[in-house]
């Protein structure tokens, strides 16, 4: 116990690579949306994607759990490995992959079901619970991880759509962690939330880092600076700069990064 600060530090420094992307290209029909992106995302780290609107942050994020497969005109090339396994390999079932790589969306999107059923949705589909008590436990654990358990424990069977925006987003995070993913992708998870709900979600993200590799797209540079350890700056489909968050914000190498964080492009 006496060396607790020491261990935390080791968590950050002694990281292993969770996701390795090499030479990734994404096309929407004829539009070349992602160009030659190479990036290595570490485990138990929060990685922020920043960049002006339309630069391809969401597109790249969605290649990591093959959500782009649901868009007909979208085509992905290159090599993306999670734990060394090529996720675009023919043998990989994208549906299974998405259980392992959870996703939280920009606008909170709870299903029109009860809070309990929202969280139990993933575990039920993937048969994670042996019985009802097991499922109850999974739901409770997920809601606690989502930092929303105390607010909803007395109304688990009320509809999820009846919660406030911030609560809905934390419910969606709880829903995503209920399937026990290894990576959590978040696409501007706070852009529809007020400042108080935002800081609650940010705290939660910091918590989640202990167990997951978190990738977050954000428009707010303050948010990137607050929650992330690594930052990637995208511009016009290119990954311009990638490194320690502190370094990107204080001492960027590329002039485009500097212009963006000082507010000259974006």
């Amino acid at each position, binding site marked *: 116990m006496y060396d607790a600060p020491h261990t935390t530090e080791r968590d950050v420094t002694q990281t292993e690579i969770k996701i390795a992307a090499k030479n990734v290209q994404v096309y929407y029909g004829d539009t070349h949306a992602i160009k030659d992106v190479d990036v290595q995302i570490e485990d138990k780290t929060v990685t922020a994607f920043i960049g002006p609107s339309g630069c391809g942050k969401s597109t790249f994020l969605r290649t990591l*759990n093959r*959500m782009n497969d*649901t868009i*007909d005109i979208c085509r992905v090339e290159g090599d993306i490995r999670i734990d060394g396994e090529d996720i675009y390999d023919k043998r990989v079932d994208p*549906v*299974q*992959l*998405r*259980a*392992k790589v*959870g*996703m*939280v*969306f920009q*606008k909170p*999107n*709870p*299903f*029109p*079901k009860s809070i309990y059923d929202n969280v139990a*949705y*993933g575990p039920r*589909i*993937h048969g994670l619970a042996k019985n009802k008590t097991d499922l109850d436990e999974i739901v409770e654990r997920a809601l606690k991880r989502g930092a929303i358990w105390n607010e909803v424990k007395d109304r688990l069977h009320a509809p999820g*759509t009846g919660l406030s925006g911030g609560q809905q987003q934390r419910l*969606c995070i709880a*829903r*995503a962690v209920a*399937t026990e993913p290894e990576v959590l992708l978040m696409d501007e998870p706070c852009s529809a939330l007020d400042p108080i709900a935002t800081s609650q979600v940010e705290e939660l993200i910091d918590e989640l880092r202990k167990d997951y590799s978190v990738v977050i797209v954000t428009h707010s540079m303050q948010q990137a600076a607050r929650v992330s350890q690594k930052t990637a700056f995208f511009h016009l489909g290119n990954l311009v700069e990638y490194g320690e968050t502190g370094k990107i914000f204080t001492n960027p190498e590329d002039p485009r990064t500097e212009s963006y964080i000082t507010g000259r492009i974006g």
Partner: protein
Amino acid sequence: MPAYWLFLIVLAIAAVGFVLGRMRALQSAKGDSRALHSLKGYYGWNVALKVLIPALLVLVVWQLAYPLYTNATVAGLIPEASVNDGSSADLVLAEVRRTANGLEAAVASGQIADTQARDTLADPVAMTDSLRSAGQIVTSELTTPILNAAQHYRAMGETGALIRTVVVLLVAFGGLFWGLSDSYKDFRARNTVEQTVKYLLIAAASIAILTTLGIVLSLIGNTIRFFNLYPASEFFGSLTWQPSFGGGSELGIWPLLWGTLYISFVALLVAVPIGLFAAVYLSEYASPKLRAFAKPALEVLAGIPTIVYGLFALLTIGPLLISVFGPDGAGWMTGTRSVMTAGIAMGIMLIPFVSSLSDDIINAVPQAMRDGSYGLGATKSETVKQVVLPAALPGIVGAVLLAASRAIGETMIVVLGAGAAARLSLNPLEAMTTVTTRIVSQLTGDADFASPEALVAFALGMTLFVLTLGLNVFALYIVRTYREQYD
């Protein structure tokens, strides 16, 4: 002057007014159209509308009201004595009108002299003959009172037409001068015209609504007349439907209502699963190309006249059922007409209705909901079953209720497919009859319109109206609350 001539003249005055109004406005601006408040056409329309609307309104009101007035006056002229037993004042009045029209036509074709036609002392027998030989229909021998009434009727028609012409033309010219005196460059012609057009639109909308109200009122009137002749407790309480035009009918609604609901139920059993599955396929699975082709193709089905479905029921579905369940097959079915025959045809008719509404509703489920499900590792079919359909459920229920209300009101298919036997039976292979078919059969044929056997049609119609109105209101309420959920 006949009414259509008058109408054309008013139109002509309006056209002249249009040109004059535009000219006057332009003159007041010294020929510079930029100095006008509105575009110059608006000054013309201002005058034209001021001519047309009041004059045509007066014309229409006159056409509706004056016949009522002449009828009432002439009816007063007919002595009680000339209304025979077994006849009625209405019939005599009809005879008067026929005679008057006969006189008019005979004079117009020159076969009877005008003075002779006006002669109040003319011999009715001779007049009957000369009318007959002039080719005019006269049902019975004329009597002096009827002839005189007819002559009075004719005279009133003539003076009426004269007064009408004068009044309408006066109003039209009044409108013309009113409009022209407005045609000055600072007059806000555009605003006035647009206001007027708005009122015209309101009038059109009110006519549509008032007509509906009128239909309901006429139904209510006749329904009340029916219940004065036949006890409501019998109508709503009796389980037999046995009209006999000689009297002593039993007019219980239940066998008919049962047939209606049973056939509608079979129809929904066919239409709801097929329609819903088609909608799920079209909205969730079909490629955009296929969808662009298949959706309109399915909706074309909705444009087929229901009588065609009726023929299909009678000629195809019935014989098909007979070959399976008939004497040669299972032996449960005797005739081609049955609940199943009509129900299946009606179900086919309702498929596009259900599928098109459900398709819209499924498409209204936000994409974010599907993404959320895919993001958790759900497959397409899990997403459809567990997220999309539950989210769309209230709307789909609404769509089904709307389909049910169409099924209940459907007539032609059941007339041809369901049969005429009123019975309360559970066997779907037996012929049964519905409320709508009975309305048709009670009112066609030569039943006396004042008998309960004919009037019952209105009570049946009213019941149907209340039933479907209730269903529609309920369904629209559900659909609307559902739509608001995602706005």
